[in-house]
């Protein structure tokens, strides 16, 4: 792994100027490294951060990655990591013209990292440096505590998808607006009016008294607490409920676990902190994959074709670009989908179709002709890249026009007993079906929170807000063993499972076995019934209770 040479860096700097002219915004400083395929294999388990802490699971992934490479060699072109300065890696076998294309791609990624609001909490962090400090800390702990450090990492990683990413983000984005009601506002607006419901004359009298106190520089709240001794407590409770938000599972354990509070276990907290903040750091990246890749593909195509330095390589470009951005006949490609969606949004906005007029227009022919020549599409996609993430991006902008234009469909797969084959067919061309299928592929960790009312007597009580998708049963036991370890007591988890204990069988059985023909098939068509259950992890044993 080494820095790119001066020649390549020169190409990169030239690309930056052109990208800036086109409207992309990013820091001046960037670092580019040349890496081999082998380096890439070793980096990828560490999410491409060379300084990430050591952990045996990463080693396992590297070993299997190497085996995989032996069987199926791959040749990734680049990777960018969201740090300050932004670091990108280039394959040592890329030719120069290809690097021009890749530089544009990378610059668009950097622009995305540095402008999309979901990344706000990562903007002030030098991740590579932070990771290095974390790595050293973990290495030092490991020399003292041995393999127990790895258990703590393992158990902390077991719940690192239950972090309050949105909550932290929300806090960061609203911090500047002075959102938290202060004591005075709370007293007058909520406490007196809503909680105590005092008559109007009492309320006015209090305002008078407040104004008087202001004038005399006298203490106003002294009397309040005399009259309402409970005020302070209610205010504090309210403040906690609204302002910092509820603690996520990891934070709750960090703060209240009796086990971690013991002096000899203090060190575990720093490990959990590291895991938690690393996970938080990567949350925006997981949640904007389609957009981020689409944005980068959009810009590499736009900027590359205008760049005179690549004359003579147009066909080479076309080949590489096609392999990256082609829509597969069956399957999904986030690069391709994101790219087309950005182009679609730009065109819709250029024609002024995100408007009430267009929305209300029912005539199909008039709709295809609708064009207000607003030409604001470019600005519009810039604001989309700033304010959205994959879910809102797809949910908002994938429309019937988009599906029709690119001939998209929901591809079904069914068993054909005559030919003994899987048959692929066009299941639906409706936008809602297509959209639902894509949204189902997006990252969406389960919503699991601590129920404080039920937590106590050494028991940690977790509640899974059910969204019609059960938890993966095989994983529950080991995950809960980890949480039990870090909590230092029994852990309860409330969730939903299918109500029928016998799962419907393999569908093929009916075709062949006359004895059971028909019966399991019928039950399969009925919607699954769900019931609430409680999983109890105690002394590393899992029990299940119906509720």
């Amino acid at each position: 792994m080494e820095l790119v040479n001066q020649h390549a860096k020169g190409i990169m700097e030239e690309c930056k100027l052109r990208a800036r002219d086109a409207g992309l915004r990013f820091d001046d400083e960037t670092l580019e490294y040349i890496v081999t395929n082998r380096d890439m294999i070793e980096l990828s388990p560490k999410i491409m951060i060379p300084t990430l802490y050591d952990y045996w699971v990463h080693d396992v992934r590297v070993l299997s990655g190497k085996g995989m490479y032996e069987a199926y060699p791959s040749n990734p072109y680049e990777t960018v990591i969201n740090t300050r300065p932004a670091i990108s890696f280039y394959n040592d076998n890329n030719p120069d013209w290809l690097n021009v294309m890749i530089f544009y791609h990378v610059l668009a990624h950097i622009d995305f990292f540095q402008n999309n609001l979901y990344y706000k909490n990562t903007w002030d962090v030098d991740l590579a440096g932070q990771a290095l400090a974390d790595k050293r800390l973990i290495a030092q702990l490991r020399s003292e505590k041995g393999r127990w450090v790895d258990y703590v990492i393992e158990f902390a990683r077991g719940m690192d998808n239950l972090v309050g990413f949105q909550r932290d983000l929300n806090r960061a984005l609203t911090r500047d607006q002075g959102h938290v009601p202060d004591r005075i506002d709370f007293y007058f607006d909520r406490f007196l009016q809503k909680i105590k419901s005092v008559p109007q004359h009492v309320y006015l009298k209090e305002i008078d008294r407040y104004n008087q106190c202001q004038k005399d520089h006298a203490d106003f709240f002294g009397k309040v607490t005399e009259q309402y001794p409970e005020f302070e407590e209610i205010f504090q409770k309210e403040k906690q409920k609204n302002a910092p938000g509820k603690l996520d599972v990891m934070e709750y354990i960090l703060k209240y676990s009796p086990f971690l509070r013991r002096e000899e276990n203090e060190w575990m907290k720093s490990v959990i902190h590291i895991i938690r903040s690393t996970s938080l750091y990567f949350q925006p990246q997981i949640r904007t994959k389609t957009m981020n890749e689409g944005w980068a593909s959009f810009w590499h195509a736009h900027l590359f074709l205008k760049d005179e330095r690549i004359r003579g390589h147009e066909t080479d470009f076309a080949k590489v670009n096609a392999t990256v951005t082609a829509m597969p006949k069956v399957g999904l490609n986030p690069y391709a989908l994101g790219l087309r969606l950005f182009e679609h949004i730009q065109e819709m906005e250029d024609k002024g179709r995100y408007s009430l007029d267009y929305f209300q227009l029912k005539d199909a022919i008039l709709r295809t002709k609708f064009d207000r020549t607003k030409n604001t599409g470019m600005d519009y996609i810039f604001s989309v890249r700033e304010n959205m993430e994959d879910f809102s991006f797809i949910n908002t902008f994938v429309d019937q026009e988009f599906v029709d234009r690119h001939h998209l469909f929901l591809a079904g797969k069914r068993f054909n007993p005559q030919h003994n084959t899987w048959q692929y067919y066009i299941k639906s061309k409706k936008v809602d079906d297509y959209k639902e299928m894509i949204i189902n592929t997006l990252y969406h960790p389960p919503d699991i929170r601590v129920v404080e009312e039920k937590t106590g007597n050494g028991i940690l009580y977790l509640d899974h807000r059910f969204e019609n998708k059960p938890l993966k049963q095989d994983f529950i036991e080991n995950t809960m063993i980890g949480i039990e370890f870090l909590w230092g007591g029994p852990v309860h988890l409330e969730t939903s499972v299918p109500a029928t204990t016998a799962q419907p069988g393999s569908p093929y059985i009916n075709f062949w076995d006359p004895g059971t023909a028909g019966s399991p098939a019928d039950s399969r068509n009925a919607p699954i019934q769900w019931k609430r259950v409680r999983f109890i992890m105690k002394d590393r044993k899992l029990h299940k209770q119906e509720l």
Partner: protein
Amino acid sequence: MITLDELLERDKKREQDGFKRKIRIGRIVKPGAGNREKIIVVPTTVEEKFVHDDTLLVDQSPGEGEPTGGTGEGEEGDIIGEQPVRPEEGEGQGEGDGEGPGEGQGGEHEMEANAYELGKVLSQDFELPNLKDKGKKRALARYVYDLTDKNRGVGQILDKKATLKKIVETNMSLGRIPDVTRIDSAGFVVSPRDLIFRVLSREKQYESQALVFFLRDYSGSMGGKVTQTVVSQHVMLYSWLVYQYERQVETRFILHDTEAREVTDFQKYYSYKVAGGTKVYTAFQMVNEIVEKENLARDYNIYVFYGTDGDDWEKDGKQTLIEIEKILTYAARIGISVVKHTYTGTKETEVEKYIRGSGVLDRQTHLIKMDVMGENVDDSRIIQGIKTLIS
């Protein structure tokens, strides 16, 4: 970088600390030209978290797979392509379930080397028992050369201890040692005939040789995890035997639905799936035919391992039991693994019922074993199963 051995060492410590093992032995198949697949043994592991289970789609009709995206012309309902469920020869065998190691003619050596490694790992790290030599063991003669024979006067290496003994002996008979408690070696007479040398000689070495039949049901009911579990267990068993017999293992593979067929290699044994109904006896019958026709019982330790979901159209298993009894007259071991579908619950399957009912497990306790597990078991349970089958 950490090695596989170190990883497994660490994994063993987990058990001491009261946690489950987490390293599994994964297998990657590298398809090659013709039948030359290569398998690569790699460690894998799963990081458990609370995640949604996407396999349980709420609305799914029978025979329907998971939908995905697509692009192209056509109307709703149009068929855009077909893909064989059961790849046959020449039809792009791919990765199977992502689980199938492959062995092909010509690729055999590589497969063996890997299987040997895996077998070593399994025996050492998972503490699978060593093979006990059974009475039926056949010998394979092989010659090795070693400095074992002794020769007086001339030779390659002087055996000092034996020579000294001889010298003392000679001097005693000459009466030159009057007091055995006070020997003065300075006064010894040394005859050239007293020098004893070791010389290179040909030694016969005996090794056992094994023939393993792997049998499995690939009928319609075997889809999904059941097959995966059975084949995982069989690849481990195979590897373990390769290690135990120092690679002197021959294998035969038989698949059956309502009839049995022999396939040439592991790859096919693994990847073929989802055919018709189920007649268990056909597979065992084929074993008997092969053994008889090729006169194998004389020269080999014969092992028969059979994997099934327990389903059999022949509910009483009469014919199966006849065939099994026949095999028991020459086999070193029959191991039957029943991998149950989750939906069968605790109910006994047909195969379990008639095997237990026949009492053969008790009568021939050294020769036949049965292991029953659910389809969702992990590697450690599978290995536990192997222990049962070969104990």
